[in-house]
Structure formats: C-alpha cells, structure tokens
C-alpha cells in the first residue's frame, strides 16, 4: 500500500466509522467502504487490530498537531493549557465515531498501551507547563488533570454533546491544582 492509500484510509476513517459499528469491523467491510482492494489492505494491515492500532496513532498524532497549531504563539500559562484542552476535546467530538472504535478496542492491550503512553506524555508536557508557572506537585497535578480531561472527553463522548458544567469544573481544577502550599494527607494531619 502506498502512503497515499494509507492516508486515504485514515482520512476517511470517520466517514467509515459512521457506517460501520465496531462489532461489524472486518477487512472485507473496511475495504468495501474504503475503496481499497483486500490484498492491498492486508499487505499493510494483516488484521483489523493492526489497522486500529495504526489508526489510533494517526488519531493521537492529529490531536498533537492540532494542539501545537492552536497554541502556537500563545504565552505560557493557564490560557494556553485551556486552549490545548479545548482543542483536544473538540477533536474528540469531531471524530466521535472513530473514537467509538478506539474506545471499544481498549480491551486489546496494544490499544490500551497506546492510550497510556499518550496520557503519560501529556502529563509530562503539562507537568513542565505547571512547573514553569510556579505550581507545586507538578507531575501529580498534571497526572490528575489529564485523567480529568479524559473523563470530560468520555462523558461528552457518551452524551454526544459538550458538557459545560464539566468543563467549568475542569477549569476550576486547572486554576487551583498545585497552588496551595498547605497540608498533607489526613493521616499526617491527625498524627
């Protein structure tokens, strides 16, 4: 398969995913709807899982590109993180049918691993952003924030719509996490 055909399969994935539920995924159906010959498809992706894994990497790569583009030139700070988060949520919403596939495919370890790697690298990037704006507990704060961002994405995904209250709560967390010098865990307070 040449790069153009591969790209075509990824670019049309959202359209394919609107017509094909995860349970119906097969090489034959993908080729039929994507206009690719099965032998050409199989030369690149020996099975559906390989295709989904490559699609996941494409999906995540597209999000990264969009976030970089949107935040380009934005000054360091909460606004930039919020802008990046909104781009992430918007991309997830625009590609909700591909996301349906990817969510359903999480039962496969390689898809789950791809997601974990993405979350880890988001947390690292965000951790350094937090550090640069003087937050404490930067990696932990970033880890929690990324988890919450995904929760918003998941709930919006299930609702098929923006959830303004959840986003407000997320921005509140962003504004305040890692800002307090204060206290330790309840145990230590009690002792």
């Amino acid at each position: 398969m040449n790069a153009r055909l591969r790209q075509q399969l990824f670019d049309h994935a959202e359209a394919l995913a609107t017509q094909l539920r995860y349970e119906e995924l097969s090489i034959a159906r993908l080729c039929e709807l994507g206009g690719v010959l099965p032998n050409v498809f199989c030369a690149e992706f020996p099975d559906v899982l390989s295709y989904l894994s490559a699609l996941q990497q494409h999906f995540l790569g597209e999000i990264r590109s969009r976030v970089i583009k949107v935040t380009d030139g934005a000054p360091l700070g909460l606004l930039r993180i919020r802008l990046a988060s909104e781009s992430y949520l918007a991309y997830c919403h625009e590609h909700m049918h591909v996301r349906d596939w990817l969510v359903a495919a999480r039962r496969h370890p390689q898809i789950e691993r791809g997601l974990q790697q993405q979350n880890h690298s988001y947390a690292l990037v965000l951790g350094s952003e937090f550090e640069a704006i003087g937050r404490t507990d930067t990696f932990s704060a970033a880890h929690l924030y990324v988890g919450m961002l995904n929760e918003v994405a998941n709930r919006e995904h299930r609702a098929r719509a923006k959830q303004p209250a959840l986003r407000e709560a997320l921005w509140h967390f962003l504004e305040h996490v890692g800002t307090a010098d204060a206290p330790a865990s309840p145990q230590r307070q009690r002792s």
Partner: protein
Amino acid sequence: MTTPPFKGVFVTQYRIGIFPIGNTRHMQQEQIRVRLTSAARRLVDIGGARVSADAVAQAAALPPRAIHQTYGGFDELLYELLGQLYGEARDRALRLTANMPAGRSRLKLAVDGYLHALFERPGLQALALQLRSHPRAIADYRRHQHGLTLMLEIELQGLNWSQPAATAQLCASAIEGIAAAEAAAGRRLPELRDSLYRYFDAPP
C-alpha cells in the same frame, strides 16, 4: 404457610423449632455463595484476576458445577465479587467519617479511607481491569462510580463548591485513577493523593 418463599420451593411444613424447609435450602445456597466468593477473593488477591472457575471451586471445596448452579456462570460470580469489594471500600469510607462534622477534613478523610480500602484489596483492580470490557461490569462500575460521586457531591455541596456535581464526577474519576496507579505501582502514591487533597483546600 401460604406463599412459597422461593420460586420452585413449596413449603408445606416447618422443621420443628427451626426454619421452614425453604429457608434451609436458602441458607445452604447462601453458604455456598459465601464459600465461592471467599475462595475467589483469596485467589484473586494472591494471583490476580486470571483465576479459573475450576480453581475457585476447588478452593471452595465444592464441585465445579456449583458455580453454574449458584451463579449461572463464572463471570457472574466475578461480577458479584467486584461489587462486594467496591461496596466494602465505600462502607469503610463512610464508617471512618460517620461521626465527623461535614467539611474539608471529612472530605479528605473519606477519600483517603476509600483509597486505603481499595489499595488493601489488590484483587479489586485486577478484577476491574479484566472485566472492564464486559457490558455488565461496565454498568456495575458506572453504578459504583455513581455512588462515589454522590458521596463527594454531598460533601462539596456542603462546602458551597461551584459545580458540585460536575466536580464530584471529575474527582471520582481522579480517585479511581489514583487507585489504578497505586495498584500498578504496588505501593501507595502519597504525592498523587496529596495533590488532590490540596485541591480540596482551594476556594470553592
């Protein structure tokens, strides 16, 4: 007795001074359930979720068919165990804070108690991970998460938090994330917990 207490069991007489026959059968069934879930729990806590039905039946000293007869299938037994473990963790958090006045300290202690309880049940995360793509486990998990969310929401409302319901949803997910990270690391991660507890000190 006019009404059979359990489907398929028609009780016509009492055993003298004890229970109706139907209740005795029910008790036996209950004992079998307890033996099976206890055995499954022991095995899952020791060796993770990849436990077989035969191994559970053997550990419970029951024939393998007992699982099917009691639960209808092995997955059903695992769902019940998962629900039991989540329930224990939630009850522990509630017990720990039962006599405390509402406020940030109670909120933090409840979350900490809950996380401790999850950490002390290593089988829980393994089981949740293994069953997470099963529709019933997903529904059970959402129900469980809803319970945790409600508990948090009540506390946050008491603190006049803006968006208490939405914040509770996000915090419940963060708590599950911390629990999963601790289970994967095999140790408590106080830095993650503290980061969340410190957030609870933020202006509402």
